[in-house]
């Protein structure tokens, strides 16, 4: 193989592309990651707040995230670098009857997959989340094995590991053309050169649809905006990721947790959704998230907000990712449409995709990808996005 020949080229050094590069390099595949940004994780990865949970409603997602949880939670002991992992669990406190019904229905599915999750009575929820508003609190679900990690530290740890294993990365070098012929991908073109590869993986996050157009494969991925923020660090006073699924005036759900540094990290889903790629902060977000968080946990009122930002959820019509090898174009792979869950799905999906490319997928690997086909009717809905 000459210098510009690779087994796999990954487009995008983000939440999915970087752990995928690591998994491919582990399997001794010659891997190149091409990224338009200046370094790893400069797209939506750094906008992620860091939650990692397996407690979804769908088998493929659950399996992928269980893999991710295994990687995040054992990283420090295996590799030595601190990625800010905390096994703090996920809590969904509930104040409304309808929400209780939805979550209890979901709980049955989650328990059927063997997940460690249960319903907490209001008094238990108050112990878990000290200072939570008690009025009309009906309890909620709690999944103790879920957790969180720092997206910033994690992606850099994966990146260093990928480099050690021999993966190559080129930054500030966006792909301008995907080369194909006879129904087969053969490489890509950038402003700086042409690269040949047997496989080209689209892991371009919010730009996935445009990148896929270069391959002539339409993918239904449209980003919408979510706004997030981080506070000063304070002494730990609660453990889990807290998700409030009620809608507010100008928002749907929001969620927050206290990271390994003691900072509260929070994120809000605007209502109606704001479609597009404008990631500049607006004046709407802080008053709305302030109102909602302090109403739920008044203790948060005095914690100083340090920084805010706006990130993109690359959405698919049904809220599930698209991870597939489209039959129309041999050698082209999609790892797109993560719907805001790229950080938690990335490492698990990376292993499954790498196993497929290496040609030795396990039953588990097959099951994960089977759930995320491009050829599906997209009419279903993820129970809790």
């Amino acid at each position, binding site marked *: 193989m000459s210098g510009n020949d690779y087994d796999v080229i990954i487009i995008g050094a983000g939440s999915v592309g970087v752990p995928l590069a690591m998994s491919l390099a582990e399997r001794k595949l010659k891997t190149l990651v091409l990224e338009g940004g200046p370094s790893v994780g400069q797209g939506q990865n750094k906008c992620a707040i860091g939650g990692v949970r397996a407690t979804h409603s769908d088998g493929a997602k659950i399996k992928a995230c269980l893999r991710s949880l295994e990687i995040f939670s054992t990283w420090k002991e295996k590799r030595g670098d601190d990625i800010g992992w905390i096994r703090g669990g996920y809590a969904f406190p509930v104040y409304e009857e309808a929400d209780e019904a939805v979550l209890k229905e979901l709980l049955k599915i989650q328990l059927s997959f063997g997940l460690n999750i249960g319903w907490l009575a209001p008094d238990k929820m108050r112990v878990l989340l000290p200072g939570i508003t008690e009025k009309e609190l009906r309890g909620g679900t709690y999944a103790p094995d879920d957790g969180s990690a720092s997206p910033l530290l994690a992606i850099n740890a994966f990146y260093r590991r990928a480099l050690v294993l021999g993966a190559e990365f080129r930054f500030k070098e966006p792909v301008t053309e995907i080369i194909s012929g006879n129904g087969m991908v053969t490489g890509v073109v950038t402003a700086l050169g042409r690269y040949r590869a047997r496989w080209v993986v689209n892991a371009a996050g919010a730009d996935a649809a445009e990148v896929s157009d270069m391959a002539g494969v339409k993918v239904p991925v449209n980003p919408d905006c979510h706004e997030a923020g981080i506070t000063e660090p304070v002494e730990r006073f609660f453990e889990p990721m807290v998700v409030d699924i009620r809608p507010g005036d100008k928002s749907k759900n929001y969620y927050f947790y206290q990271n390994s540094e003691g900072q509260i990290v929070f994120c809000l889903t605007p209502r109606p959704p704001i479609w597009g790629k404008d990631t500049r902060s607006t004046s709407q977000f802080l008053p709305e998230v302030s109102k909602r968080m302090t109403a739920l946990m008044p203790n948060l009122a*005095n914690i100083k907000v340090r920084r805010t930002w706006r990130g993109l959820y690359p959405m698919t019509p049904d809220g599930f990712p698209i991870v597939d090898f489209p039959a129309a174009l041999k050698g082209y792979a999609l790892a797109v449409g993560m719907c805001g869950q790229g950080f938690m799905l990335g490492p698990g999906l990376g292993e499954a995709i790498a196993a497929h490319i290496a040609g030795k997928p396990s039953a588990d690997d097959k099951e994960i990808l089977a759930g995320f086909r491009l050829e599906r009717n997209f009419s279903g809905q993820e129970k809790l996005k």
Partner: protein
Amino acid sequence: MLEPEEKKKLRFTFEGRELEAFEDEVISSALIAAGIKIFSHHKKDGSPQGIFCANGQCAQCTVVADGLPVKACVTKVKEGMKVAALNGLPKMPRTVCVQELGRVEEIETDALIVGGGPSGLAAAAELGKLNIPTLIIDDKHKLGGKLVLQTHKFFGSVEDCFAGTRGIDIADKLEDRLKAYPSVKVWTNAVCAAVFSDKRAGVVYNGVYYLIKPRAFISATGAREKTLAFAGNTLPGVYGAGAFQTLVNRDLVRPSKNLFIAGGGNVGLIAAYHALQAGIKVAGLIEALDHCGGYKVHLDKIKRLGVPVYTRHTVVSANGKNGVESVTMAQVDADFKPVKGTEKTFAADTLLVAVGLNSVSEFHDQATAFGMNAFVCGDAEEIAEASAAMFSGRITAHKVLKSLGVMTGPVPQFWFERLQTLKSRPGITQERAVTDKDKAVYPVLHCRQEIPCDPCATVCPKKSIKIPKNDMMAVPKFEGECIGCFKCLLICPGLAVTIVDKRKDRQLPTVALPFEIGRGLVKKGDSVKLTDCEGAELGDAQVVDVKDFKAENTLIVIAKTTAAAADKAAGLKLYKAQNPQTAGGDFSSMSDEVIICRCERVSLGEIRKAIRSGIRDLNQLKAVTRAGMGACGAKTCASLIAGIYKSEGVDLKEVTALSQRPLFAEVPLGTFSNIKCRTEEEEKASWSGF
């Protein structure tokens, strides 16, 4: 020379110790007045933390006041306040009740000016003259910006920018002028926390959050101090000259007995002079270049008083365990690296870093990026003297008017010329002028360096001091008649005019010297040591009179001496220079342990390692090391990190800059929805009467 006003006293405690503060005094000043320099210990390594910027920009002075972590430098003491050191992470108090969720008021205005310093105030006045609805906000409790710290008389020209008046008095004059313009609203204690892409600015005014929607956004946000990396640079007692002036000149606190200063620009030179005025010894002042960049008159003032000035020297280390005990300097080589074997160590309890200013540009940058009708003036645009900032504010106001479609005449051309002149760096230094020995009474103009300043020429009733109208930079010339009225002597900001009087005795004339160090230090009948303009001793002389000009807050010391000495005399030597030890210090200013990011305590070694691993994106550097992730938002370390890249041989063009995001300042979460709530502590306090 400042007389403390009579102020009400408040009682508060620090770590259980009973202390007093003046009404309206901020916590940091009250603590320093009580001799407390260590406010907290850092969460990462327990290192002692004290005051640093004293300007609400960093968070190094954080303490816990009545249960809440606050910046001590911008939080006023309240009666009965319980202040505690912050050791590690703050524990948040329980909020016992949420009384109501408020709403956020949105205010529309034609112009929003962020920053009430000289440029912002000048801009506001220009807009006010044309009745433009204008809101000017400032994060301090008082308008004036850095003017309120400046006790020295200003340079520049009398007619345009109050030259010869002390900065603190200029602030009052500018503020008073605004009262004539009803369309100008003033908010003090108002922090601009963010600007947003929907062209609104988020402002916290006295704890209430507002969204301001201006048709023009004017950043008059001033400058912040640069800092240096050296061993011991985060010890309590190492801080900026601006912080020092805040303590000494605004809050009338004497934070030091013995000071050492790094930096020979105007800021460092003036700080040295202010220290001497406050009765603080100055052990030395160093400058890395061949000569001090500040005005020669400022340099000469401190030399005359006996401050040793060392050029081509740098700080090697600040030494001490819990605070500065001594400072080690060394000569620098051609690359400005300290030369081993040239160390000298001075006893000092404080080290001021005065190595220049950076524009506070983030407000303008963000407003511009968001497509606002954005303007910038004063130091936020370009670092210069306050006199230049006032012109910059006026000129900017006219640009604003034009953008708002307000009909107004063209900006007078001479404003631009004045702005250029006032921004000028000092020019050449001329030979000593020949004095008019035959005259009975005459001024000696020791001002020989070309600087933009003309009050002496303006004030002379006989028009005998000449500076060409169109060349303010020219050095003044005396031609004609002198009546010995002292007006030139009293107005000169550089203390560079003396008056020789031979009317009574031609052989033993008197020389009148301006003196601002303090009343009562020199009395009639004292024997004093005269010095020439640059501090060389001219022998002893007897004081025949001391005149106190209260309006100018200046003394004139009149001494009898020989005719030759009288012509040369320019000051009194008050202090003996300290003999430094020729050893000691921690010669590791380039070592890996030096702290670069103070907020997160990230060391030079960690940053070097990251750079050497190939990181060329400051966002990635921040992700990996946490440098720039702290409370100050990389305001302090950004320029140091740029310097490290350079010293590692990396072209800064290859390095991706940090993304700028809201917020400019930390704000409590509840404030954004104007929530009304009470903490457990407040609840307890409200019940204590029962």
